[in-house]
């Protein structure tokens, strides 16, 4: 009973609930959910989920990062170019990951050390990163050995799909970070910078770390997407940044910082993805699709925000008849 209560009051619960409900609807509409549905769902959306994890980390310290999509594009371009220059697939992927880390560190430097508003700083860097991607590979093209795609669409340790492992790496890494003293510091910093500073927390270093982590997440997202498409596309991530912020908010992560967790980002992103499937399966007239999609999104966000609203909660509790 207590566990149920805890689950219900969990920040990410509304997103989880929305996801499950929409998953069910989708199952009904397409006649049952199959293993292959989940496999293609996860392999298609692992990138978006990783980016949502990354952006959630930055939002937790009251920041944000809208350059992750551009980093994803850059990673894709780097991997393809490196592969075509003769590097092996693992080497190329490592190079892509490294460039994402560098981008993340650069963001961390600008936001943490130079103290520039994260929204604007990452807007500027996103322009720059997207520029680099387009500069390296002006046109979609190139290819990566299909063994990359086979690896990605296959399993690891016999039965776990590779994308799940990739997301799992990020999740485990983050869980470990949360167990470090740094974990508490991140939540403290998200609540109030000045107090964090007064409490002896190294604000610049934490910001730097969080953006670097976000860069890493974008790097893994880039690997997922590159493996899924096995080709180069210099703008492949361009729309991911904004989607991921919406995902985080649906997942109960407060844009003011200090509240929520990466599970929120994960469920939020999953909900957004399943929403797309539903809108397609419903076979609506094409002119109303995006309008309806926007409306459902709005409802989703409102639901998850209302669910986190303390005043509303206490009002409901009072109505049910609890004391104080």
């Amino acid at each position, binding site marked *: 009973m207590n566990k149920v209560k805890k689950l219900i009051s969990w920040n990410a619960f509304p997103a989880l609930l929305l996801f499950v409900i929409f998953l069910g609807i989708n199952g009904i509409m397409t006649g049952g959910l199959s293993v292959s549905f989940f496999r293609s769902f996860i392999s298609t959306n692992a990138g978006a989920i990783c980016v949502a994890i990354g952006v959630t980390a930055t939002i937790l310290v009251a920041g944000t990062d809208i350059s992750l999509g551009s980093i994803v594009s850059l990673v894709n371009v780097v991997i393809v170019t490196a592969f075509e220059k003769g590097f092996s697939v693992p080497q190329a992927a490592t190079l892509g990951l490294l460039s994402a880390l560098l981008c993340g560190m650069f963001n961390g430097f600008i936001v943490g050390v130079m103290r520039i508003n994260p929204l604007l700083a990452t807007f500027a860097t996103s322009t720059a*990163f997207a520029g*680099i991607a387009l500069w390296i590979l002006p046109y979609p093209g190139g290819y990566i050995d299909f063994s990359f795609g086979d690896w990605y669409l296959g399993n690891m340790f016999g039965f776990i799909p590779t994308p799940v492992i990739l997301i799992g790496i990020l999740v485990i890494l983050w869980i470990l970070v949360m167990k470090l003293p740094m974990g508490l510091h991140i939540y403290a910093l998200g609540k109030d910078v000045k107090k964090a500073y007064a409490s002896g927390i190294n604000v610049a270093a934490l910001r730097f770390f969080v953006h670097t982590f976000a860069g890493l997440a974008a790097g893994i997202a880039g690997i997922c997407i590159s493996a899924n498409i096995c080709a180069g596309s210099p703008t492949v991530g361009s729309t991911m940044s904004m989607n991921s912020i919406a995902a985080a908010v649906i997942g109960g992560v407060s844009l003011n910082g200090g509240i929520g967790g990466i599970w929120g980002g994960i469920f939020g992103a999953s909900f957004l993805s399943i929403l797309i499937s539903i809108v397609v399966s419903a076979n609506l007239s094409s002119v109303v699709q995006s309008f309806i999609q926007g409306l459902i999104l709005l409802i989703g966000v409102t639901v998850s925000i209302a669910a986190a609203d303390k005043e509303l909660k206490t009002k409901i509790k009072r109505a049910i008849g609890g004391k104080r």
Partner: protein
Amino acid sequence: MNNISSILMTTSILTLASIGQAAVIISGDSGLDMSVGAIMSMTALFGPMINVGSGVLSFILMIPATLLMGAIVGAINGLGVQVLKVVPLVMTLIMSNVVNGFSIMVTKGQPSVMVGKELQGISKTLVGPFRILPTVVIVVLILLEVFFLRKSRYGRKLFLAGNNRNAANLCGINSKKVIVLAYIFGGAMAGFAGLMLVGYAGTAQMNMASSYTMLSIAAVVIGGTKLTGGKGTFIGGALGSLVLVLITNILQALNMAAGLRSLIQGIILIVILMMNSRAPKLRQ
């Protein structure tokens, strides 16, 4: 010379958008309007469709009509932020999807837009490089800055509500109303900017103004307004707009690969932000 006037025209349009954006940012609570581009695109499509008898009359009607269209979206933004309590960034982001979807739904993706001579006349020359639109915008800018933002009771309330909502409420200021009105004003300005954009461009397309969202935010911030709300100016936003348009134009004139251009643009933006918008040190 001609290039200057083109810069001024684009700056004027961005300035109009940045005025609305500034009001929303000033309104505080991490206020931000990510739907500026969508509103502009929408009014650019629907504004010129107004056609009642004479061209002049149509043109005169277009202005209140686009202001109204923008204001309606702004009102939904404002209510979403204040009543549904959705964070502004996300609320306005989603609204921008909804608005774009709405434009497609209504026009079935094929708007019938014939931009009239009168509307296109906004880029006519007055004297030398001074064209009608920039001149009007400068006058509007100064009037709004002085008589709306600084002198009017509403403007002063906006600053207070944006700075400290709680305190403003306890003083008897209806912050909710004040903030919603800021979104309405922001939407209306974006609506008007969209009309001017289509007048300048001569033809309308779906999503033609999508880049104006981030540009307007950047312009406002480069102009010295903090994203935390409670303070700021419209004139700063105009200067920010000029800077951004100049950068774009100069880069455009240089012949280089698109990626490189975007890289340089990003770096310039970073440098401007570093020079001009760093948060104060934590240790004084």
